[in-house]
């Protein structure tokens, strides 16, 4: 009995030890790879400006949805314009908004807005085509304080209607 135990014990210890090492190694590799993930770095930006509409457009009390975009994002074949950052609501006239700009997710700043003239919550329907949109490219960016005036004069247009602009 004792002789069998003498034979089996070192084998068992060796097996447990080997298994322990594998588990530790796998754990270490896992931790190393997992630790590369982190929070998205941002920088605070204070945005302000004026939203205007053409003469004759009755915008009193109408909601304006403003979408902020990177002008460009990613590299190589994945490089593309108009990468969404965040959205907020305001109205025609002066506006201001502070937000955290994700510095590693793209470059530049576009301020796109659309006016919900019929208050239906949708930027135009297939039959009602009155809601107006506009876009401003923030030229002096990056900066902590920026200004963007937006004129909402194109019906039913998404941000791709404005940016990137057609070459002259």
């Amino acid at each position, binding site marked *: 009995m004792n002789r069998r135990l003498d034979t089996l014990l070192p084998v068992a210890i060796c097996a447990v030890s080997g298994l322990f090492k594998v588990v530790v190694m*796998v754990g270490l590799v896992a931790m190393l790879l997992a630790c590369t993930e982190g929070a998205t770095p941002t920088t605070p930006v204070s945005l302000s400006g004026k939203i205007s509409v053409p003469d004759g457009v009755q915008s009193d009390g109408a909601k304006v949805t403003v979408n902020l975009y990177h002008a460009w994002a*990613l590299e190589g074949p994945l490089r593309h314009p108009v990468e969404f950052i965040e959205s907020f609501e305001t109205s025609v006239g002066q506006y201001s908004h502070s937000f955290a700009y994700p510095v590693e997710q793209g470059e530049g700043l576009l301020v796109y807005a659309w006016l919900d003239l019929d208050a239906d919550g949708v*930027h135009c329907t297939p039959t009602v085509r009155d809601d107006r949109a506009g876009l401003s490219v923030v030229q002096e960016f990056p900066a902590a304080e920026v200004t963007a005036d937006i004129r909402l004069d194109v019906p*039913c247009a*998404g941000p791709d209607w404005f940016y990137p602009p057609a070459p002259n």
Partner: protein
Amino acid sequence: MLVVIRGKGKLIKTIIQVTVLACGFLLLGACGGDPEPGVVVDGQRLAVVDMHLHAGRWEWTPPRFKERITERIPRGFKWVGEYLTNTWLSGEGIIGHLDSGGVSAGGVFALYSPHTTGNAPNAWVAEQIAVDPSRLFGFASIRVDQWNVDSREQLAAFEDALVNLDNMIGVKLAHAHQQFRFDDQRYYEIYEIAGRLGKPIYLHTATSPNPGTRIEPPYTSPAYLEQAIRLYPDTIFILGHAGWDSYRRKLTYVDACIDLAQRYPNVYMEPGALGAKRAAEVLPDFIGRIKKAGVAHKLIYGSDGPQFPGYIGSHLEAFVAAMQAAGYTVDEMRMILADNFSRVFNLPKFEL
């Protein structure tokens, strides 16, 4: 010196052990023999074509979508995502998925969607479907993210792909992914080209759970497509996902899709992802609405695979079970699972 060598030997041994563990993980789900092709309904074996399959490579996948597709992989092992993507989403990988799901043939989509799921270029997709041209059929796409700048070049490249790449039988568009409105007439020339060349267009409708995808109605509601459907009667519009609002897990736009399919001879639907677990609660309702509306002849089966090993088969199983539970006839199921595809794309019927 000996100690160092022994130390290195142990390290190599450990690396091998870790590799074996990883390989074991990779092989999970890939085991088991392939089933007989087709599905058995009332004693008859029906052929299946899955018209909605994705191809791709890791290097053409945006970081956010890489995170999403590695969600199922434990932390620390996400590095296998590159291997899995490049293997599963290749032509050979797709053939393997079809075999294990009992599916005879599939439509493989090209796409240029740098905002969301990434790119699968036309020429590369043509190479993948060349692995087995009798079973894999290509859908060409077009890049639209700089339309004001390069629309002429993109339209020319798109037409060239449809004309000159082998086995490109249709077109794939995904407005919500590619970030352009259904009702933006600047893009209507895409529909004109597809109609003129006799290449049906598959269009993603409704939403998607993938990050960065637009969810507003002008990008998702098929109602915004009606003007184009009316203007281009020679163009076939296949409403992808048949209005399944995957983001909200609701059948938000299904009735609008059915309505268009009933009113326009050039409109069809595809139920991709409605056989997935995410849609399990709404699948019977969807199947019931199709049956009640009498539009089985307008539904072309697709899964939105491969996604992960076993998905194509499990999607098919759920979908067929739901049709059986709803009392679909064998003829209706034969149309949906294969014959509608053959009819719309002018291909011979798929036989088992």
